[in-house]
């Protein structure tokens, strides 16, 4: 049999370890080390699952589940695993740049190229995206009083496609090389002429799988919000996190398509000799730049909007106060979503279009700053008249307000073509987008984890370790990225594995220190989770409302039952649960119970994910039999599933009633805790609303605001 027929272009030298054997160096050793970690990690997981006998529960309770809550948890698990890889890559890049003045360093130029490409690609598509998607999955249906999303199976398929993409990118650690074209993969550099080999193909197929998954998610969530709100939940009573989820979903529907188009066209160039983006024969890379950023700019808002939603929930809850300017926040979010499609050109002011075009897009970019600025001040005003508790999530929020606004300032600077001409493609830009993404999105997600963890697992996270990790992350970020602004102004280009300018050294050293702190913060966060699991008995808050919450998700047990709401809630105002607690109508038994239909588990989604993964791998390595077989199998699964009729199972009313009445009885019997006891083991999740407590100051609802200072 012919080797190539079976294995495509894989050769023995494709394996990362071959590089180490054939030409040993520190750079190769690190590559092999990373490959080994990937292999050993996978092996360790297999052994653990086998020894503990967890294969069956994993398959039965998780992989085949279509429950939005489990899907959400799996998304976030992917995000955390991928974050571990990408953040280590970031630290490696930092160390390389520090140690490499005038040559030297320990990474080869090619290895560094792969590092910034995998770091960027993973952070965007397999950390930030799954993180926000997982969170929206978990929280949004609970906030609108729904039992699941509109299309639970589609939801699981989105997850599995994303997981397939993540696996493909992990496989590239072991088999073959990754692209060096960066996360944006600009042709013609990424075309077959300049980047032969499998690297760019890994990028193309991993990203394509992720982007198709996200398109489906967007459709699913938008429909869910339109159609599955509980009675009384009008649009303008929706919690702000749900509003931002809606805007993000709409952005996903429209923005992922250009990306998929761009990656497929690039693939056609590479596989089939097309000339969409090649240098010659009518190809034009400017089309790629436009398509990519037509996705790329809305993408940053896809990421930040859910985080904005988190900030709104966190600041209102930990200030024990209504959000300031709800309507204004909603309109600001909508403005941002619409405008985000009108500014993509600011990513290539330097392409030679006329000054007028540049000016128009520059001004459009500044205009987005207006609603964003409004939101920031809305959050500040939310605290005015509140009683602020400095929980870990709230610390992240305060840090966000201060740092995000500085990132906004540098963003406005970059919106000026004249400024951009100088700092485009430098570390100034790198500092700017990390300044938005880390305190904004990433820390927003970390705050969300602190906030909703007790809802998801029924116990709080260890507060002390949470703070410790915050106090590493926040200064770590400042140290790691603020020097980069200055470096960029001094002319340090991005994606550069070494410079010969000794003036950069002190700044690179500071940035390295910051990266170390960030790593320490992450280690503390993992520790926090482990310690909290160990101490789950003391930290337990099964009664569902540990933070004196406001929206519907806090009205149900933690963790919530498969059906979420025993009886669909009736909503009459914003902050429905908070109002019910104040009015004394919370935890009342419903008049009657009904049978509930929940979707059955199905192997459809994991099978599609598995075959999609095989398909992508086959494409990367030109293993055509695998491509054909897995493609046929994907559609075979889809078709087979379309014949399945028995896709739902019924939970009898009696079961629902027993569970719910037990919960309500426990909640009613539990002594409510005040906010003073929030972080103690007395907090089992039954809150006395702060507004009823009257501890300090008087309650003066509705009174006009007093002047600041």
């Amino acid at each position, binding site marked *: 049999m012919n080797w190539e027929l079976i294995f495509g272009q894989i050769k023995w030298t494709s394996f990362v370890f071959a590089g180490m054997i054939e030409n040993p160096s520190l750079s190769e050793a690190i590559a092999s080390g990373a490959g080994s970690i990937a292999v050993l990690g996978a092996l360790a997981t297999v052994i653990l699952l086998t020894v503990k006998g967890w294969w069956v529960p994993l398959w039965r309770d998780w992989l085949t589940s279509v429950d939005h809550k489990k899907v959400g948890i799996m998304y976030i698990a992917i995000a955390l695993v991928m974050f571990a890889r990408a953040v280590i890559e970031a630290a490696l890049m930092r160390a390389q740049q520090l140690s490499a003045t005038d040559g030297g360093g320990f990474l080869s130029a090619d290895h560094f190229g792969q590092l910034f490409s995998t770091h960027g690609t993973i952070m965007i598509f397999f950390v930030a995206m799954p993180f926000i998607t997982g969170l929206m999955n978990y929280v949004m249906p609970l906030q609108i009083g729904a039992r699941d999303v509109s299309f639970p199976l589609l939801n699981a398929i989105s997850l599995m496609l994303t997981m397939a993409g993540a696996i493909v990118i992990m496989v590239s650690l072991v088999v073959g090389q990754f692209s060096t074209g960066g996360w944006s993969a600009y042709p013609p*550099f990424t075309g077959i002429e300049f980047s032969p080999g499998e690297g760019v193909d890994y990028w193309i197929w991993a990203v394509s799988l992720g982007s198709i998954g996200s398109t489906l998610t967007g459709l699913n969530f938008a429909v869910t919000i339109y159609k599955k709100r509980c009675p009384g939940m009008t649009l303008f009573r929706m919690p702000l996190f749900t509003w931002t989820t809606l805007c993000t979903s709409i952005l996903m529907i429209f923005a992922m398509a250009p990306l998929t188009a761009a990656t497929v066209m690039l693939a056609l160039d590479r596989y089939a000799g097309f000339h969409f983006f090649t240098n010659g024969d009518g190809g034009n890379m400017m089309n790629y730049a436009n398509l990519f950023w037509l996705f790329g700019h809305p993408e940053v808002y896809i990421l930040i909007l859910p985080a904005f939603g988190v900030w709104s929930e966190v600041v209102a809850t930990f200030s024990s106060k209504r959000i300031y300017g709800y309507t204004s926040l909603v309109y600001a979010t909508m403005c941002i979503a619409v405008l985000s499609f009108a500014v993509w050109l600011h990513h290539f002011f330097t392409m030679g279009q006329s000054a007028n075009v540049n000016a128009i897009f520059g001004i459009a970019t500044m205009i987005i700053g207006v609603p964003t600025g409004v939101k920031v001040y809305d959050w500040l005003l939310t605290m005015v008249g509140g009683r602020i508790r400095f929980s870990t999530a709230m610390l992240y929020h305060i840090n966000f307000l201060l740092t995000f606004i500085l990132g906004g300032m540098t963003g406005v600077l970059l919106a000026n073509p004249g400024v951009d001409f100088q700092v485009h493609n430098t570390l100034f830009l790198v500092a700017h987008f990390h300044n938005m993404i880390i305190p904004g999105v990433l820390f927003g997600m970390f705050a969300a984890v602190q906030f909703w963890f007790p809802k998801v697992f029924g116990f709080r996270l260890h507060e002390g370790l949470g703070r410790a990790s915050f106090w590493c992350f926040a200064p770590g970020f400042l140290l790691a990225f603020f020097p980069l602004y200055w470096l960029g102004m001094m002319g340090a280009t991005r994606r550069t594995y070494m410079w010969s300018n000794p003036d950069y050294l002190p700044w690179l050293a500071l940035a390295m220190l910051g990266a170390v702190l960030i790593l320490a913060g992450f280690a503390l966060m993992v520790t926090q989770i482990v310690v909290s699991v160990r101490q789950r008995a003391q930290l337990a808050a099964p009664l569902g409302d540990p933070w004196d919450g406001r929206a519907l998700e806090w009205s149900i047990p933690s963790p919530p039952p498969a059906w979420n709401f025993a009886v669909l809630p009736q909503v009459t105002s914003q902050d429905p649960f908070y109002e019910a607690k104040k009015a004394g109508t919370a935890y009342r038994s419903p008049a009657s119970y009904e049978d509930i239909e929940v979707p059955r588990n199905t192997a459809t989604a994991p099978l599609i994910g598995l075959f999609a993964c095989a398909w992508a791998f086959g494409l990367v390595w030109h293993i055509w039999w695998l491509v054909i077989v897995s493609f046929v199998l994907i559609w075979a699964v889809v078709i087979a599933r379309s014949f399945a009729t028995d896709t739902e199972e019924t939970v009898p009313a009696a079961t629902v009633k027993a569970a719910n009445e037990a919960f309500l009885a426990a909640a009613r019997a539990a002594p409510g805790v005040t906010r003073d006891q929030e972080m103690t083991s007395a907090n089992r999740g039954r809150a006395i609303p702060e507004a009823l407590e009257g501890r300090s100051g008087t*309650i003066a609802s509705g009174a006009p605001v007093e002047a600041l200072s």
Partner: protein
Amino acid sequence: MPGSQGGSVTLRGIVGLLAAAVPKIALPKIALPAIALLAIALPGAGFAGSFLEPAGPIAAGQLSHFGVISMLMLIVIVPMFVALPIVLYRYRRGGKGTYRPDWEFNWGLELLIWGVPVALVVALGTALWRQTIVGDPYRALGPDPLVVEVVALDWKFLFLYPEQGVATLDLLALPEGRPITLKLTSGTVMQSFIIPRLAGQIYAMAGMQTQLNLLADETGDFTGRNTQYNGLGFATQSFTTRVMSADDFEGWVATAKTQQAGLDAAAYARLLPPAVVNEPVIYARFTPGLFDQIIASFAPGMAGGHAGHGPQAGADTPAAITAPATSHQQHDHTPEAAQ
């Protein structure tokens, strides 16, 4: 103003009026020393040949614009840094602030938080518009510019001087005080060309032509480089820009003409394989029209149809390029535009 935008006179009038209303004139004067001070106060703050130390009007304009925008932005930044600590202190749990759990809106504040950013964006936008037009890389900086054709290669830059008939690799010799028009293209992947102390970036793309106008008002060696990742040699893809007095430049050209090497199509082909150039190379002559041939080489079919249309690059006189009123036609990226 040279390079006036046909048809947008009214718009510019309005913008100009708005701009006059903005008290921003004094700002650059404050901003520049502020930035400079900051820089000096910081350890190891060599400017490393960056735009923080401009050596020409374009880079100087970019730096002062940076200052203007930064200062204006403080209007929204500072209140947050002042108010947040106060709010946190006053309204912390147990603090003195009155608890108003249901307070959620106030028209006065609302107008303030929408109004200030809107007004600010008007000011910023006006400044942006003016600077963008003035700093347009396609706007010629005066009559009779020196034209240099730039070909971005892996990992080096080729400079062709049609007027002088000489060419260089990784050395850009320029006369002080004379407007310069760089015409750029790429013989390989897209690159981004910059000489930070003189002017900002512009992309160089195969089969297309872009333009960068600049002027040096200081002599000296300034580093220029590619900022768009293009493979293994990217980190070291820089070149020296040597600005000399007009007389020295004449002398330099005369010496260049005495060099042995010339650059014809075959020699150009030898430059194509990716490589880093350690020492600049000077060519005494080059095949006229080489620049346009390089552009056309990426679209043989298309260029063929236009071959007879007009003079090729050899006939490129400075006068033909400076016609500023048509500058925006030249933004066209098609190969035809190269003619």
